[in-house]
């Protein structure tokens, strides 16, 4: 990111702007900096974009500078939360994942549980966190036909991501286990996992 230079935002309707995410920027730092603006209603940071919504009769000023500054900051000094999720690897797709990865199921479990993950994106469903850090051997395209129902608490993988379903929902990811005692979404706290959090899975026999 060259100093202070940021493309103009693309209008996303009259009540939102979208920028390409500055390279090397820290998602949680961008989120915090933009949310602090009094006229910003919502901020969504994905891996490739930053989006801000507002009242079109009161658009926020100076967001480009704020974003450029936050992008320069990086996230180096920020204290990271680490969330440990206990998992039983009992999902209905574990065998198929193992077969497609060319690994014994036990090895799939070992590799999945050994990795350290980071919340790269929250979206799709309330409280659904896309976790980066999956062992590359476990990267598989989504299921050819999505399941009509994946249970709340299902641990699943697809592409480079792992995730825990917050709600019963249709889903196209590979269901490999069940999170225990973990609520991805609660009425008290909202999403349990936040952008930038570190996540580990602890295997429960």
């Amino acid at each position, binding site marked *: 990111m060259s100093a202070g230079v940021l493309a103009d935002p693309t209008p996303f*309707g009259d009540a939102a702007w979208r920028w390409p995410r500055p390279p090397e920027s820290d998602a949680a730092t961008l989120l915090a900096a933009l949310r602090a603006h009094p006229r910003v209603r919502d901020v969504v940071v*994905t*891996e490739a974009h930053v989006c801000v919504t507002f009242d079109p009769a009161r658009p926020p000023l100076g967001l480009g500078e704020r974003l450029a500054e936050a992008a320069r900051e990086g996230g180096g000094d920020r204290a990271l939360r680490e969330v440990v999720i206990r998992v039983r690897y009992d999902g209905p797709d574990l065998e198929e994942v193992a077969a497609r990865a060319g690994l014994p199921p036990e090895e799939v479990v070992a590799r999945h549980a050994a990795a350290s993950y980071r919340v790269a*994106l929250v979206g*799709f469903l309330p409280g659904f966190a896309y976790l980066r850090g999956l062992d590359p051997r476990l990267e598989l395209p989504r299921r050819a036909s999505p399941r009509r129902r994946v249970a709340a608490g299902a641990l699943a993988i697809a592409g480079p991501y792992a995730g825990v379903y917050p709600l019963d929902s249709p889903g196209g990811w590979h269901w490999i286990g069940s999170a225990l005692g973990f609520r991805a979404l609660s009425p008290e706290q909202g999403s349990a996992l936040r952008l930038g959090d570190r996540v580990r899975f602890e295997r429960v026999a």
Partner: protein
Amino acid sequence: MSSRLAVVSVAGLVLVQDAGRPGRMHQGIPPGGALVPELLAAANRALGNPPDAAALEIAGGCRLAAEGEPVLLSLDGAPPRRLAPGDSQEIRPGAARVRYLAQRGGVDVPEVLGGRGTLLVAALGGLDGRALRRGDRLAIGDLATREPMTEGVSVDLAPEAAIRVLPGPDLERFEADALERLLTAEFVVSPASDRVGTRLVGPPLALRGAERGGSLPMVRGAIQGTTGGEAIVLGPDHPTTGGYPVLVTVIRADQGRLAARRPGARVRFRAVSLEQARAAAGALAGRVVRRATPEELPSCLALRHEVFVQGQGVPPALEIDGLDPTCSHFVALEVGELVGTARLRITDGGQAKAERVAVRATARGRGIGAALMHALEEEAQRRGFSELRLHAQASVIAFYEGLGYAGEGPLFHEAGIPHRAMRRALT
């Protein structure tokens, strides 16, 4: 015993809704809010409630009865009606896809994650996170801040008008003629529409390459083309991210108008500029900018006195310069209250000049000054001028630059305040 509303019967989907859950999209929680915010606001205003108080969003029909003490109800902004204990009111489908029944004081359900509205996908908010059923009882809040209105509030949802859109943000991901095709096609609202999105049946919006990308941020009003040929206009409970690029986005002022259309209704789209969209949003917020009537002139002068004499120390004799009778005066009103004024003067040299642009201190930063300038520009253009000039106070030069005005010459002092001459071509 306090008053309550009892649900006698339900035929359709009845949900508690309010202004939504601001500031939670980064947790994947949709923004929420009423499908047709104008009708919710009208019903609340008629009752003296804050415009975004929780009320019932009714798709279909239902019958409600009062218990305890009388309740005061408004349906879509109609004049408030008193419902005595034991009496019931039937709500039948209206012209819009949903109707809003508000009660004076608001529906009293707990606030969950910053809102009282029902988010069905997550089964939270509203009454136990679900739609209302026969036998439910709703407590009534104490949110009313004003007297109820006897005449009610009417809302024009322009059922025949083209829905206004801003192109983008992913135009380049579509075939070159996709925008043109969208703007010339006619769509029909599908019965599969819900709070997640209004589904439209029409010509497919062909993607270039057609492959899904990574997750993109999404907003209400974004129009996604699906592989099935339907277009989905995202509604208040849309997923916060999605895999489909967005060809155009419905402007805020028309999101409720679109959501109000029933299955089978026709929809056409029209592209507008960002400036037009913002003006429409201001109008939706109850803002009117127009020529002042002669009776309004004293109020304009009073507001100028407040802003320039009291606020900035301008001597009264300079503020009232004797030229007002020669000027065209404009007012900005919000829900009937004067919040801004400005005048257009034709100088002795035959130039159009914007003067005395004043916005009430409590109403600043909402685009009112820009709306006043827009009105002056239109008036000057209508009268044949090709340029509008002004003397900007130094502190607001950037504001005028943002409206397309260019400064010329050095700063000078007027009424003890540094100013700069600025001008803009009217095209």
